[in-house]
């Protein structure tokens, strides 16, 4: 998978380590086996080890973990691979119980691999269910990160924000700290660490403690570091950016069709050639594509504002036509070269057709009144227009009973832009929501309040000040030839990335004193230069940005844009607990039963 290499930090190391860890575990179970997957893992693990690889290790069948009995298969080992979650333990116990009763083979063994770590609580739960003894091996499949691209890794833990901020459960922060530790094992200790927010601080404290515990065991102390700086961004510091609609190519694909584990599904009818359309054959009901930098055209398109995508595609098409037709009088030499390149040219052509079709699918949505009206409302909020009273646009959305998540997303955005809603407005929204959507809307709102996304106005206008001080809205930036990161949301520059930009320009938090007071949580500002790690690596300038609580594709695009600016001279590696957009982020908060 060559798309993972290329940066100064070789992400494929993570992939290889994870794959080997899985293979080692599989080799412990000799003979044919079946794997039962926790649904949330089956997709991401595909980024580490594909089914073909697993087959080589005698994995005959794979099933999702469900409450229905397992299909009967003739294998020696049944391996459950799950996250350490209590409700999953009940499913495992139930499955083992049913299967061992119905199975005739007394030698059949059951195993359980936790990803990424065992949990005492889960083991206790298994003991209570009486099935603990039936499990032969209980192991850890230590896979903290799933590699998404040469500059992007994700832990794929969607509940980090809600676990910590709603349920006050710091378990996932421990996973994050372990994960950073792992990164330092691969890429050397990181000399400079910045961070902001409660969760960032706690991760850092955990990390220093873990490091002290591990110090004696770690031999490779004087390893040179590939990563020079670590910036930990706690999602609570910037709740605005996920709520704003992403307007980059990749961001829009995620908003409209959803990208999971670098794969997105599209309606198939757009992707058929004319003959295929006529044959009316049994086509699949979804067309899925893998979207990563392995696709050269996509890697050029993904970070562009959508308005720049059309012109770019048509330019490519023209270039390609010229290549195919060219001059008719060609020398033998040229003809030879053409034939040699024919295969790549054909591949490029089909990629171009694919992305043109995807862009058409997106355009259908973004040209609709629905989308444009919503975007306009959003941009008015971001510019602090009419944020202090109930928005007639939102009222109408509620009256028409549009999707709850869409309405809540706008209300949250208004709330943040007005630095908290007026008590009367908040009460009014609450009543309206409950009358239309029922009590479940009330529970949703309660969770959003706990998560800090909805609140009553306080005396200071944080957002208004931040907007001015950090230039969060830029009116006249170009979408086609951007000069500022605000192109990713057309007018709005993600706060998280603006902070990153200022931090790197100023060389630390000191330059940001005047805005720091407006951001929640404590600051982390540490140097962990141990005596033997010297500043020999100063010429390389790699910054690891770690988002606790998720980040959006638009934020990633903005970081990539910054790395192309010469004055900064940095390269980013992005780590996140999950890739999110406004909807998936709010859903993870609404659906927690606290």
């Amino acid at each position, binding site marked *: 998978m060559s798309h993972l290499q290329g940066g100064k930090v070789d992400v494929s190391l993570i992939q290889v380590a994870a794959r080997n860890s899985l293979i080692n575990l599989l080799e412990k179970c000799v003979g044919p086996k079946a794997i039962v997957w926790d649904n949330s893992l089956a997709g991401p693990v595909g980024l580490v080890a594909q089914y073909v690889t697993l087959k080589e290790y005698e994995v005959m069948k794979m099933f999702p973990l469900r409450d229905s009995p397992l299909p009967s298969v003739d294998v020696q080992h049944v391996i459950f691979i799950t996250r350490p979650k209590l409700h999953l333990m009940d499913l495992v116990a139930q499955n083992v119980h049913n299967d061992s009763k119905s199975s005739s083979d007394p030698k059949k063994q059951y195993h359980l691999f936790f990803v990424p770590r065992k949990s005492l609580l889960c083991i206790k739960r298994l003991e209570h269910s009486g099935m603990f003894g039936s499990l032969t091996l209980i192991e850890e499949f230590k896979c903290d990160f799933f590699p998404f691209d040469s500059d992007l890794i994700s832990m794929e833990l969607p509940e980090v924000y809600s676990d910590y901020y709603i349920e006050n459960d710091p378990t996932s922060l421990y996973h994050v700290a372990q994960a950073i530790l792992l990164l330092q094992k691969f890429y050397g200790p990181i000399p400079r660490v910045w961070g902001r927010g409660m969760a960032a601080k706690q991760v850092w404290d955990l990390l220093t403690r873990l490091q002290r515990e591990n110090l004696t065991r770690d031999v490779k102390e004087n390893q040179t570091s590939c990563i020079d700086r670590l910036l930990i961004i706690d999602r609570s510091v910037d709740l605005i950016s996920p709520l704003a609609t992403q307007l980059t190519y990749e961001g829009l694909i995620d908003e409209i069709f959803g990208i999971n584990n670098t794969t997105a599904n599209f309606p198939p009818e757009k992707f058929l050639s004319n003959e295929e359309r006529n044959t009316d054959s049994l086509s699949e009901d979804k067309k899925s594509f893998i979207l990563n930098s392995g696709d050269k055209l996509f890697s050029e398109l993904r970070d562009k504002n959508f308005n720049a995508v059309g012109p770019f595609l048509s330019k490519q098409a023209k270039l390609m036509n010229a290549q195919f037709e060219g001059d008719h009088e060609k020398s033998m030499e040229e003809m030879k070269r053409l034939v040699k390149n024919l295969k790549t040219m054909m591949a490029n052509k089909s990629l171009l057709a694919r992305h043109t079709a995807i862009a058409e699918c997106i355009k259908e949505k973004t040209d609709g009144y629905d989308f444009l009206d919503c975007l306009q409302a959003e941009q008015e909020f971001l510019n602090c227009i009419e944020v202090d009273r109930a928005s007639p646009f939102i*009222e*109408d959305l*509620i*009256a*028409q*009973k549009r999707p709850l998540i869409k309405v809540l997303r706008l209300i949250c955005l208004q709330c943040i832009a007005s630095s908290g809603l007026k008590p009367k407005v*908040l*009460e009014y929204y*609450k*009543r*309206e929501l*409950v*009358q*239309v*959507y*029922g*009590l*479940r809307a*009330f*529970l949703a709102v*309660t969770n959003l309040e706990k998560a800090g996304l909805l609140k009553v106005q306080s005396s200071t206008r944080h957002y208004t000040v931040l907007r001015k001080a950090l230039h969060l809205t830029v009116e006249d930036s170009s979408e086609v030839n951007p000069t500022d990161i605000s192109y990713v949301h057309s007018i709005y520059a993600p706060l998280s990335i603006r902070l990153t930009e200022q931090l790197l320009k100023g060389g630390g938090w000191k330059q940001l004193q005047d805005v720091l007071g407006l951001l929640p949580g404590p600051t982390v500002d540490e140097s962990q230069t141990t005596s033997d790690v010297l500043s020999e690596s100063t010429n390389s300038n790699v910054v690891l940005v770690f988002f606790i609580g998720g980040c959006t594709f638009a934020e990633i695009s903005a970081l990539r844009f910054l790395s192309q600016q010469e004055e900064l001279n940095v390269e980013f590696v992005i780590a996140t607990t999950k890739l999110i957009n406004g909807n998936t982020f709010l859903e993870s908060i609404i659906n927690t*039963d*606290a």
Partner: protein
Amino acid sequence: GFILESLDEKKTHTQDASLTSAVEAYKKARNDVSFSICEEALRLLKYQRSLKDKINEDLVGKSVHDTCTRLLELKDIKEAERMRSNFKIPDRRYWWLRIKCLADAHDWIELEKF
């Protein structure tokens, strides 16, 4: 008031005992908005039960909005108007609803009268 809200989800499915306790809890916590929202939910349940005999349809568990929509679909405008005043449905939303229901029913003649 925080403790009991997990309860009211179950209550909407079955009975209103837990909703009543949520109302009590919010009252004690002096959370006026939540208090009145839960109280209204309780009122709605009772009202929906009384409707059950009248229109021969079970609307329990539906929101105010959906209940009112159903009444309009059944052309029970009197009952819908009563809901509108009992549950203080704002004009803007009520008329949206009227228009939408008429349009869905292709009742263009009624719609003309607006």
